[in-house]
């Protein structure tokens, strides 16, 4: 079948990069990209990082480039999908027919149950980041609910802006969910060194309005925290409501096969944060909320649409980064909390750097580096070839000189 009408729903990085990849790979048919936000497409990672600290501006984070021209329809969400007649209907009632559809509607921040949402500053869209940056500039105390990476990045930006910052985390250590307790402790130390207070093993019972602009965060153990700004980073939910009547397989994301093709619907693909894809190697489904995953799947689906006779399956090494206090934290691979962990200090030519290597049965499974991109790339290449952890140690030693064991 000839593909002449491609529709992309979602104007964040997955959707835009998919459209650009189609054009770069030679597609010259009709190409429509639909976006619910009216802002010109922009990159999301800086919202909790450089945009919040003022190191970058909204003008610097645009995703559009000269090399990919398409019909961009912003400020109107997709409202429904009928895969049988191959039509998407927009919120304004307008139908769009497709030969191939790419779903890239992403996720949104989970709300705190039982909390007045107006007291919590959201951070998902550009306008949220701009508003939050202005709030941080006031210098009022900041309470961050949830010690994940979004929370940690906002904490770092707020501390640098001169705010008194408290992170409230339900687990025994912040970042432990992603990195495990040993490497998680390195992130905690980084925050402690910048004066951020981290309360662990405690949940939030509620957020109440104080006279004026402030809020009172009530903890489950009875303690209270006064805040000028409250930010919650307690996970995300996939934006799949618009697909409710489509018959597509939905359960924590849009389910796809290993080629990012949606199961049971012809010529429909899902990519990025919203996609729950089949991991052939692991024999399970996964949904990753990482920038790199979104771009890799965008490339894969463009290829899939244009060259259906040459199928590729998605099997990437996950990669995630975070910027806190000028330190780039890079995680490659998947951390299983029962993996063996070694935390090392490496005397690299650019200075001492911390690295944690995770392994199972002697094979590297993941690596997190603090301020050492070259070490991260070395570990990533090792993961791609399924290297033994001893090989990775040797490769890192070659780059840095002797490694000291921290833990």
């Amino acid at each position: 079948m000839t593909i002449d009408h491609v529709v992309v729903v979602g104007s964040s990085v997955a959707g835009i990069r998919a459209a650009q990849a189609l054009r770069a790979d030679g597609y010259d048919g009709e190409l429509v990209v639909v976006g619910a936000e009216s802002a010109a497409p922009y990159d999301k990672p800086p919202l909790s990082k450089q945009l919040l600290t003022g190191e970058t501006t909204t003008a610097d984070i645009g995703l559009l480039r000269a090399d990919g021209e398409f019909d961009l329809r912003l400020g109107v969400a997709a409202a429904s999908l009928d895969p049988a007649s191959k039509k998407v209907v927009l919120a304004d009632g307008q139908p769009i027919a497709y030969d191939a559809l790419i779903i890239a509607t992403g996720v949104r921040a989970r709300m705190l149950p039982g909390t007045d949402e107006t007291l919590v500053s959201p951070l998902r869209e550009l306008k949220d980041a701009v508003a939050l940056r202005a709030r941080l500039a006031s210098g009022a105390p900041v309470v961050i609910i949830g010690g994940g990476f979004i929370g940690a990045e906002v904490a770092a930006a707020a501390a640098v802006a001169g705010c008194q910052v408290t992170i409230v985390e339900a687990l025994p250590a912040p970042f432990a969910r992603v990195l495990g307790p040993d490497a998680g402790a390195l992130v905690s130390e980084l925050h402690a060194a910048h004066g951020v207070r981290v309360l662990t093993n405690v949940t939030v019972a509620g957020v109440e309005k104080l006279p004026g602009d402030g809020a009172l965060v009530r903890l489950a153990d009875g303690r209270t925290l006064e805040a000028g700004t409250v930010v919650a980073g307690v996970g995300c939910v996939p934006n799949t409501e618009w697909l409710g009547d489509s018959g597509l397989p939905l359960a924590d994301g849009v389910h796809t096969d290993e080629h990012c093709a949606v199961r049971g619907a012809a010529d429909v693909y899902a990519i990025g944060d919203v996609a729950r894809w089949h991991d052939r190697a692991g024999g399970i489904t996964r949904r990753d909320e990482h920038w790199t995953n979104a771009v890799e799947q965008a490339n894969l689906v463009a290829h899939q649409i244009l060259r259906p006779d040459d199928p590729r399956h998605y099997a990437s090494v996950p990669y995630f980064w975070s910027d806190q206090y000028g330190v780039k934290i890079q995680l490659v691979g998947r951390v299983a909390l029962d993996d063996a962990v070694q935390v090392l200090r490496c005397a690299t030519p650019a200075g001492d750097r911390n690295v944690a290597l995770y392994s199972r049965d002697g094979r590297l499974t993941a690596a997190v580096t603090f301020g050492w991109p070259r070490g991260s790339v070395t570990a990533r290449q090792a993961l791609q070839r399924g290297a033994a952890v001893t090989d990775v140690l040797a490769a890192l030693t070659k780059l840095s000189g002797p490694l000291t064991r921290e833990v």
Partner: protein
Amino acid sequence: MRIHADIARCQGYGNCAGLDSEHFDLDDDGLVVIRRERVTDDEDMIVREAVRSCPAEAIWLADDDD
């Protein structure tokens, strides 16, 4: 085609070297190193993917005479 890099934009994400270690590497400061500038026709696809995978838009492809 030829690979170009703007070191001032590079942030050390390493996606380029993770995808295509034939053309890209990082130095000790975490900045991109172009191991080989020239791109042959059969390498074009993977290099384009590496270019699109750069969050900092620090690398790009251009014709030899550009």
